[in-house]
């Protein structure tokens, strides 16, 4: 099976449990199980090539420009982890089916589990570190869902958040580290990176990369001081704990260290950081575990301790230690998963997992007792179980390790940890199963149905078999994996067997076992001392840190974003002015190279009008109607200026936009107050004026300097002028740029315009749905209204003009490609033609005759433009490539057709629809009952007489 498929299967399969849960819990579990089984089979058929030492690869260039390729590889290391993930995953799926209760949403559970499984498989099969990072983050996210699966439990939610914060934060550090690593080597492919040990270790960036990557690995693998999230994650259902915290997620960090071992290990920095962290973690974890009364907490801290053990072995940096690390990973996964499942069974059947309330379950739950005891003894490191073998190897390695010239420090502390480890393992057996039978269990404990004990039993069989026949069962696997870890070099001599003779490790094992028994015997006394000792509570510290961050971000947000918009505006303007000043004082400017154009009299008059109107707006802006009139003057002069300065298209657009904008603003002024009151103090106004004047001076000076100098770099306009006719088939270069050269931009812009119109529509709907509607219906207009609401002359004139206006629109549209005009302008002109009808005959009259919705017009416009663009694909051209040709139909003159005209049709429709929808929405505010008149040219004498009526009433 292709590696792509193995990695993709869990993701694909994740859909099914969520769907099949409607067919029952068995269906959902079977779907999840089948998916995992298929992936596992797909993995197993690669056994022959993996065992030969080959590397199976599957490559696919995803985003080559970024070096992000979907490359997968399967070597011994990846195979071992994939086997653990899928194999234990299968057992967990079986176990969870019987563990979860009827109230738990099982479909969700399996979906999350498969997502997590897929992410894990992705990590171990990735041959590209960027891809690996993606999967890495995915495991953080999906484990968040799994840990917080019992959403109703606050512990679950807190634990999930903590796990996400710690592992996700570590993941961020790792991203940085991996990017540094990729930059050193010049490739993001793992297989390339792994061959550049010397290059990486010689690089000055080796230390930062190492620390950042280790941060990711340590947080994920719960190494001290990041170990605190793991026990809190135990709020998850037991299958999740068994899966995430025995075989998979916490092993991801170990996997990463093993994966990077060939290039990162072997330096002093690696040894002191990794081995020390591992040693400390192993000791602290084992020590805390002994004093935990919650079965799962005990197992959690024991996991922390064992992860520390493996980390320490990897940190030693010797080949033989790496072999021991790999062997212990296998062993730990088997006995720890079985122990978690046993704990779950005890919890499930006895109703509690508090060790203080348990004991004497030996005869009540014989099967569970057997399974739990074997697994726990393996954890304690007793022969002939598999835990003994790898612990023995570990102790042997510590004896050969010197830490800062001290021969005794590492073995001594490791031995101490082994003593504690034996003690808590014995406690697991002694205080839960042995001892006198009690009669105050919350439930009546009994052995569970076979579905629950089958999975741990299978693992325990493995525990025993690996212990007895290690060389035969896992020998080849350990060899292949180890050689993958140490980078394909020759394996050192080692032998996986129970009896090595009277070695120091054997004595240490014996001491550990006896010491463990001794400690357990003194447990009550030890517990008193332990409880009396002051200990930092990680959760309190974590929450304190998070709380401090929250307070800090609240402070930033509340200070910067306090809702005073004029403050944001003034900060923005002042900052921009400051930037401009900085650029002005530090930059250089070339000499003037262009002659200014002469000033003619008519433009000068226009300038006076514009400046006068602008200043008047500033002065009279409290009178809103007057300032609207004045801004109309400004717009008009601007359009004339465009026309004068050789931009006929702009002039046409500006003047038609001007018309619709004015109508829009006038309509809105109908509802807004007519005057702006004095709000600001004189000092504030002077300050604002000063800032505005400086900004205006800067802008004016900038554009003045720009206009008198030639382009600093050759412009691309020449290309457009030269190719407009040859390539685009049109002589109006501006229009050809819009519909052809920069068609994609235009396509985006009509979509934006359409969205703006839809926002306006939605806002109208929302506002009219509230009590605003009542206010509007009872509103008194600002100004007295004319009784002649639809003047006869205007109605007649606009109706006569309608066809003419449409004709003008069509003409402007068709000539657009070769002469000033085009879809934008035509859309605006036709919109004005419609608006005239609204204004003259009234909103009600107009919408009664409206045959289509403006939403649809926008939609069709965008669709037609898109379809034109897609049409290019059928000619194997890129999106929006236009085509054109010439037709000669006698007696007409030869004319040109271009696909661009279809695109322009889309533009036309979108602009038309957007303008109409915007104004139509606004008009709905003005609607009042009784507006609909049978005769549009009616005269309503009541309205004229309103004033008189009021006077009469007052009288």
């Amino acid at each position, binding site marked *: 099976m292709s590696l792509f498929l193995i990695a993709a299967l869990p993701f694909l399969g994740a859909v099914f449990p969520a769907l099949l849960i409607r067919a029952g819990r068995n269906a959902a579990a079977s779907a999840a199980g089948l998916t995992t089984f298929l992936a596992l089979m797909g993995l197993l058929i690669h056994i022959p090539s993996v065992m030969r030492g080959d590397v199976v690869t599957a490559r696919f260039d995803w985003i080559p420009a970024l070096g992000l390729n979907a490359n997968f590889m399967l070597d011994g290391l990846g195979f071992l982890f994939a086997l653990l993930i899928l194999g234990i995953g299968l057992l967990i799926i079986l176990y969870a089916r019987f563990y979860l209760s009827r109230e738990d949403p099982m479909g969700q559970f399996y979906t999350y589990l498969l997502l997590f499984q897929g992410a894990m498989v992705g990590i171990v099969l990735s041959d590209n570190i960027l891809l690996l990072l993606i999967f890495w983050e995915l495991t953080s996210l999906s484990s968040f869902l799994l840990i917080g699966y019992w959403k109703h439990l606050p512990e679950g939610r807190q634990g999930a958040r903590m796990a996400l914060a710690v592992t996700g934060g570590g993941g961020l550090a790792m991203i940085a580290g991996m990017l540094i690593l990729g930059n050193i080597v010049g490739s993001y492919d793992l297989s390339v990176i792994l061959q550049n040990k010397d290059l990486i270790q010689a690089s000055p960036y080796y230390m930062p990369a190492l620390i950042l990557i280790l941060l990711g690995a340590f947080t994920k693998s719960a190494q001290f001081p990041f170990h605190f999230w793991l026990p809190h994650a135990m709020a998850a259902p037991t299958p999740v704990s068994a899966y995430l915290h025995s075989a998979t997620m916490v092993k991801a960090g170990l996997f990463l260290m093993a994966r990077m071992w060939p290039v990162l290990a072997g330096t002093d920095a690696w040894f002191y950081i990794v081995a020390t962290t591992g040693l400390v973690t192993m000791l602290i974890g084992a020590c805390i575990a002994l004093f935990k009364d919650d079965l799962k907490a005990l197992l959690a801290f024991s996991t922390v301790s064992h992860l520390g053990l493996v980390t320490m072995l990897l940190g030693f940096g010797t080949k033989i230690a790496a072999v021991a690390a790999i062997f212990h990973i296998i062993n730990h996964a088997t006995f720890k998963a079985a122990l978690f499942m046993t704990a779950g069974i005890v919890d499930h059947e006895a109703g509690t997992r508090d060790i203080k309330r348990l004991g004497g379950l030996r005869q009540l739950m014989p099967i569970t007792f057997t399974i739990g005891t074997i697994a726990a003894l393996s954890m304690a490191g007793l022969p002939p179980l598999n835990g003994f073998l790898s612990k023995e190897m570990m102790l042997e390695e510590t004896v050969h390790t010197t830490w800062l010239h001290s021969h005794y420090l590492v073995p001594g502390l490791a031995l101490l940890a082994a003593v504690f480890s034996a003690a808590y393992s014995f406690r697991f057996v002694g205080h839960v199963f042995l001892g006198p039978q009690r009669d105050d269990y919350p439930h009546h404990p009994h052995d569970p149905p076979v579905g629950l004990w089958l999975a741990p039993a299978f693992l325990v069989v493995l525990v025993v078999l690996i212990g007895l026949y290690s060389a035969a069962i896992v020998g080849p696997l350990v060899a292949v994996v180890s050689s993958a870890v140490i980078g394909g070099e020759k394996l050192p001599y080692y032998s996986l067997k129970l009896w090595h003779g009277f070695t120091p490790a054997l004595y240490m094992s014996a001491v550990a076992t006896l010491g463990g028994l001794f400690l357990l015997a003194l447990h009550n006394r030890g517990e008193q001392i332990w409880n009396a000792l002051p200990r930092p509570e990680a959760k309190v510290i974590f929450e304190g840190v998070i709380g401090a961050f929250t307070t800090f971000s609240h402070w930033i947000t509340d200070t910067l974003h306090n809702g005073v918009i004029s403050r944001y505006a003034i900060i923005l303007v002042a900052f921009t002015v400051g930037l401009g000043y900085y650029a002005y004082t530090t930059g250089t400017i070339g000499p003037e190279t262009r002659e200014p154009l002469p000033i003619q009299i008519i433009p000068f008059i226009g300038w006076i009008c514009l400046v006068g109107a602008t200043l008047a707006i500033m002065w009279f802006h409290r009178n809103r109607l007057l300032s609207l009139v004045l801004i109309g003057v400004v717009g008009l002069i601007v359009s004339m200026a465009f026309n004068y300065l050789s931009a006929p298209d702009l002039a046409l*657009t500006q003047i038609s936009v001007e018309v619709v904008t004015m109508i829009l603003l006038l309509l809105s002024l109908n509802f807004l107050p007519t005057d702006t009151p004095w*709000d600001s103090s004189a000092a504030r106004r002077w300050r604002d004026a000063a800032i505005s004047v400086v900004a205006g001076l800067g802008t004016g000076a900038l554009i003045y300097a720009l206009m008198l100098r030639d382009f600093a770099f050759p412009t691309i306009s020449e290309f457009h002028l030269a190719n407009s006719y040859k390539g685009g088939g049109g002589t109006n270069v501006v229009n050809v740029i819009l519909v052809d050269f920069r068609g994609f931009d235009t396509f985006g812009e009509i979509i*934006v315009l359409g969205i703006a119109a839809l926002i306006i529509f939605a806002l109208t709907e929302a506002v009219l749905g509230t009590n605003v509607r009542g206010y509007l219906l009872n509103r008194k207009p600002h100004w007295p209204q004319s009784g002649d609401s639809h003047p006869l002359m205007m109605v007649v004139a606009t109706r006569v003009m309608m066809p003419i206006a449409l004709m003008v629109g069509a003409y402007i549209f068709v000539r657009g490609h070769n002469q000033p005009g085009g879809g934008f302008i035509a859309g605006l002109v036709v919109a004005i033609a419609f608006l005239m009808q609204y204004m003259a005959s009234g909103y009600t009259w107009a919408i009664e005759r409206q045959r289509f919705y403006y939403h649809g017009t926008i939609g069709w416009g965008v669709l037609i433009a898109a379809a034109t663009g897609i049409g290019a694909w059928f000619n194997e051209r890129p999106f929006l490539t236009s085509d054109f040709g010439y037709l000669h139909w006698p007696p007409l003159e030869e004319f040109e057709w271009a696909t661009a005209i279809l695109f322009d049709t889309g533009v036309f429709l979108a602009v038309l629809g957007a303008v109409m929808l*915007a104004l139509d929405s606004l008009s709905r505010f003005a609607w009042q009952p009784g507006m609909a008149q049978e005769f549009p040219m009616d005269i309503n004498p009541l309205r004229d007489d309103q004033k008189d009526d009021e006077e009469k009433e007052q009288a």
Partner: protein
Amino acid sequence: MEALVASAVGIMTAAGIFLILRRRTFPVILGLSLITYAVNVFLFATGRLALDAPAVLNKYEDVPYTDPLPQALVLTAIVISFGMTAVIVMIALSAYLSSKDDHIDMTAQDCVDGAGEDA
């Protein structure tokens, strides 16, 4: 000519900024419109000014053309700015009709109320 265009751009910018620093919605809308004019003319003018040289190709004789690129950019900018004006007008209008208040700034009390609604 350049001096006229530049001074017009500067004055429109100044007036526009002064108006967007006011505290009511309507002057801010007017200010944004003025800034829109200023920015459009500014962008247009980056193509340098030319008289009687529209960018419409003449098949029959060799004539100078003005720079078409800024014109194309400004053309869409004009239309988009209409959409933007329409949206802010509608937001201002809805806000005014809902609260009978056309201040743009939230008061400290508003912030407290808003936070209360979120929680």
